[in-house]
């Protein structure tokens, strides 16, 4: 009996030793803390002045739209041959007034330092849309349900031999005054659609939630903008959570270039 006990004791000791050895192992953490990276928001449009907004990220419960602006940065943009220095405006945005700096086909690189981070981002100015037109200058909404709501009433077309990425931005100049369909009560009057690198887009009765005068803008954009729009994190669970894609190195948000063409459209 004595021997047995001795053996059990040994076994237990062995086990405790193993557990302790195991427990002493250095933890390898893969936690990356990128919650203090700056948020960059800049849309470069050819022939327009430049505005770059830089904010802090917000605490989860913060209901402010944007985080506090980060001020006092030295923000510069290079087009490969020239580098310009942006100046801080009163609101904390960084601006550059010369509208000739942005031109088709050039690559623009943003850079500044923040805390210990060298923040940078790169984008290419896409070509301007060509031959943007609508088959009709307006359409009528008269049904809410049924298959006819998905019939193509108007086709938006443009020339796109190189399959450039673009989005269609709909601006309702009348705002939310005239709802076409009450079930979209919470829908915004202005919206945008991905064209999936196509050269046309069909408009149906379902496209519009409000009657009114629209400005339809076809914007040639870069992939980073499509990625931003496609990521949908509004409802997520802890098992499916992921970061929004960004083209900013050591930062989050977007730095992208685009060119647009516009036409008017009436929905009644």
């Amino acid at each position, binding site marked *: 009996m004595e021997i047995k006990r001795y053996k059990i004791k040994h076994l237990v000791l062995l*086990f405790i030793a*193993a557990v302790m050895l195991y427990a002493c192992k250095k933890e390898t*953490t893969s936690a990356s803390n990128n919650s203090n990276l700056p948020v960059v928001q800049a849309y470069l449009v050819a022939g327009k002045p430049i505005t770059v907004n830089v904010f802090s990220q917000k605490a*989860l419960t913060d209901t402010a739209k944007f985080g506090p602006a980060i001020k006092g940065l030295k923000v510069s943009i290079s087009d490969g041959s020239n580098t310009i220095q942006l100046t801080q405006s009163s609101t904390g945005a960084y601006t550059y007034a010369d509208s000739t700096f942005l031109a088709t086909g050039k690559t623009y690189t943003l850079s500044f330092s923040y805390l210990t981070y060298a923040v940078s981002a790169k984008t290419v100015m896409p070509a301007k849309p060509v031959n943007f037109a609508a088959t009709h200058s307006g359409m009528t909404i008269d049904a809410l*349900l049924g298959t006819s709501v998905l019939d193509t009433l108007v086709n938006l077309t443009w020339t796109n031999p190189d399959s450039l990425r673009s989005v269609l931005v709909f601006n309702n100049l009348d705002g939310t005054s005239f709802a076409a369909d009450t079930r979209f009560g919470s829908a*915004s009057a202005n919206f945008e659609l991905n064209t999936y690198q196509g050269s046309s887009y069909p408009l149906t009765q379902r496209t519009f939630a409000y009657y009114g005068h629209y400005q339809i803008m076809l914007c040639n954009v870069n992939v980073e903008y499509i990625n931003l729009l*496609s990521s949908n994190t509004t409802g997520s669970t*802890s098992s499916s959570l992921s970061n929004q894609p960004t083209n900013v190195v050591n930062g989050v948000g977007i730095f992208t270039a685009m060119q647009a063409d516009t036409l008017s459209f009436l929905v009644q």
Partner: protein
Amino acid sequence: MKKLLLLLMIIGFSLGGFAQQTQKILKKNSISKFYTCPLDKFLDTLALDYHLNIVFERDSLQKMDVVEHFFNETLKDALEKVCSDYNLHYWIEANGIIYILQNTDDLARLKKTKNAGDMAAGTVKPVQLPDPVAPPSHFKFSISGRVVDQGSGEPLPSATISIRNTNLTTITRGDGNFILFNIPSDTCVVEVTNSGYQPEKIRLDAKKIQEPMVIEMFTALNTLNEVTITGKKSGVMNTDTKKVGVLELNPASLDKLPNIGEKDILRAFQLMPGVAATNESSSGAYVRGGTPDQNLVVFDGFTIYQVDHLYGFFSAFNSNAVKDVQLYKGGFSSQFGGRLSSVTEINGKDGNKNEANYGVDLSLLSVNAFAEIPVTDNSTLVLAVRRSYQGPLYNKIFSQFNTSTVQGGGPGRGGPGGPEQTTPASHFYDADLRYTNRLDKNDLITWSVYNGQDNTDNSRALDIPSFLTSSVNSINITDYTKYGNLGSSVKWFKKWTDNIYSNTYITYSSFFNDRNRSTSGTTDDSNGDAVSFEQGIVEKNSLNDVGVKSEWNWELSNKLKFAYGGFLTRQATNYNYVQNDTSTLVNQRESAFSGGGYAELLIDPTTKLHLQPGVRETWYGPTGKLYTEPRFSASYVLNDHFTLKAATGQFYQFMNQVTQEDILNGNRNFWLLSNKTDIPVGSAQHYMGGVSYETDKFLVDVEGYYKTLSGLTEYTLRQSNAFQGAATTITQDFYNGTGYAKGIEVLLQKKLGNYTGWISYTLGQAEDKFAVFGNNYFPADQDVTHEFKTINMYHYYRWNFSAVWLFSTGHPYTAPLTTYTVSTLDGGTSTAYTVSGKNALRLPDYHRLDISATYDLLKISGNKIGSIGISLFNVYNHTNVWYKEYQIQNYAAIATNVDYLGFTPNLTLSLRWK
């Protein structure tokens, strides 16, 4: 000769012949007498008159009086009458002795009694082992045969056969057969033991060894375990101390454990070390850092692809149709392949070949009925059907797994808003059918069918809002999810010679998971004509698996066995995602032929050492490659108490179960085959070792494991409709990575006594590395550092009490740290999270206590005819977090915990008829 053989087949070899003799005396004799005497005198008279051996406690029975006039009643009825009057039971042991019991636990004491006053012996002496009838005439021969249950004729697997005073010992296989070589002489004694049965001893003679033996075992009285044999399996759950990572389960004892709703074989395994117990939403086995899809589930030879019901809360197997279950936690034999982590092998019941048997289990969740019917002399049928009903327990679980506050992921804008509060009609059912036909003594055909299905139907007609009644005639919403399995196999067992036998299977298994969420109806167009419309999504996944396989065993000697076989399978998967009846977003059809073979040697050079080298070869069509899996396991018995064991091997997996996230309607699982492009063939290496220390009463088992994994696939299918009014698009992403898992498991089990149970502790780590989440290893979703389980069972006469307490480190999860918002071109905004490292945070620790009490219902003859039980799940109502949900509102993130089940009681009633 044939007649003699038949006689042998029927009677078999066992002491039980004497029990049958006693039964016969009780049934055949009738008494017509008036008795007025103390009970002990009554028994004395019976013993004397009818040559019975009766054992009882004279002191107590003296005080009981019999005043009874029996008129032409059988002895059995008379005995039952007096026993029933004084709340006594009688029990006939295999040796023919009748015991009169006040409590079932008295049997052990009465059997040991030396007090002659407590016995009423007839002229027939209690049976002892007969002396040899003749001097030994045969030497160094082999015996073979089958061990069966005396009552039902059901073959008994894992019974231990040994030759007294030698080292010769073997264990019956799944079909109850055994062979022993080199028996010293034909006067030896064969000893047979098996859990839940009375031990048997058979004296060999020259005649018996000529033909295969059929050894019939008598069930033991349902009482505490008083027989002590080292290595004997006696509990609800057992580890095979001679093998690394093997768990065995006897479904008959499952009612002693707490259960929620149903006796559950897969849930029971989760109480053992190395099998995670805290995934309430999955009955699948998370074995040693593996995922449920890395666990092969084989039922009567065919693979089951959907192992659970009701959001994973219940396993899909009906314990009434199951004979035994083995779980191989890793390093498994080359007989099995196609999975990276583990194997669960389930064998169906053969059924009762002597008499029909019926039973029913009722609980707050379901009705479960079974029948075991002898069809002809040689064939039996087992039928088991289970169906849930939408009682309070069902609804509680259903709503727990359907609660969500998060919007999104669903089919987008459905019909018009309005009240949609309906309780969906939903249920699950499963059915097992098993037909066994013994064609002759060497051929056995078994046909097994399994079908199980879950249906959730939330379809309804919609009340049309008043502002639409002018233009809309009707709207019907179809909303159902159906998933399930259909599997079948035909098995042909053939015994070619005494030491060569084979099992050949034709198998079929299918799995489907369909979802339909669509709106249809009619509406008036501008001309007033009715136009019908249909919108929504229809999603279908199916899998078909057809195969043949043949498994051969050739037992060369006590020291060498050879197992080999071949297989051929065709698997086909289909995944289809249709929107608005017209646009098919995903349509994937894949099929794969695979084939191969395995060979394995089981070598026992000494009685202490066991070596098992093997190899498995698989040719997998879609990659056109041959995969070689060498395997090896070994054990060494150091002394009476200590056993060392180890296993290693290479494992491949050719298919993956992927989860489609659907926050609103519950995630759906489906299967995809490996291919050359985005889903690689998974690969794993196992290294495991352990030591066990076993005494008559205790078992300590410590095992360690290390596994490397590669070719892991994580799949996401995301529906993106961020663009208002745009057509929905589906993005499929396949992420590939590697991983590892390691850990130590400790089991301390008390095997005998009124109090039994075990303590299980697992220290584990499972980490993955996927390029898409960075260059570092991160904790896998199923990673749990500490898991402590204590299972306590107390036997008090006809009561069984149990308490199970579980504690585990919380599961890892990914959390948002901050949010940020950027404006978009239309003047809107896009708000996003900055998230922590993948799985960098931990949910709160999981713990809960379950308790249960079961009362056995006994016949006067001591046979169990059922039980009544109450189970309390999560007794102290601890809130265990399943996962967290995040939602952005007003640019801020709102976090919600989605919890597992709180306190839930359940009642069960089991009844059996013969």
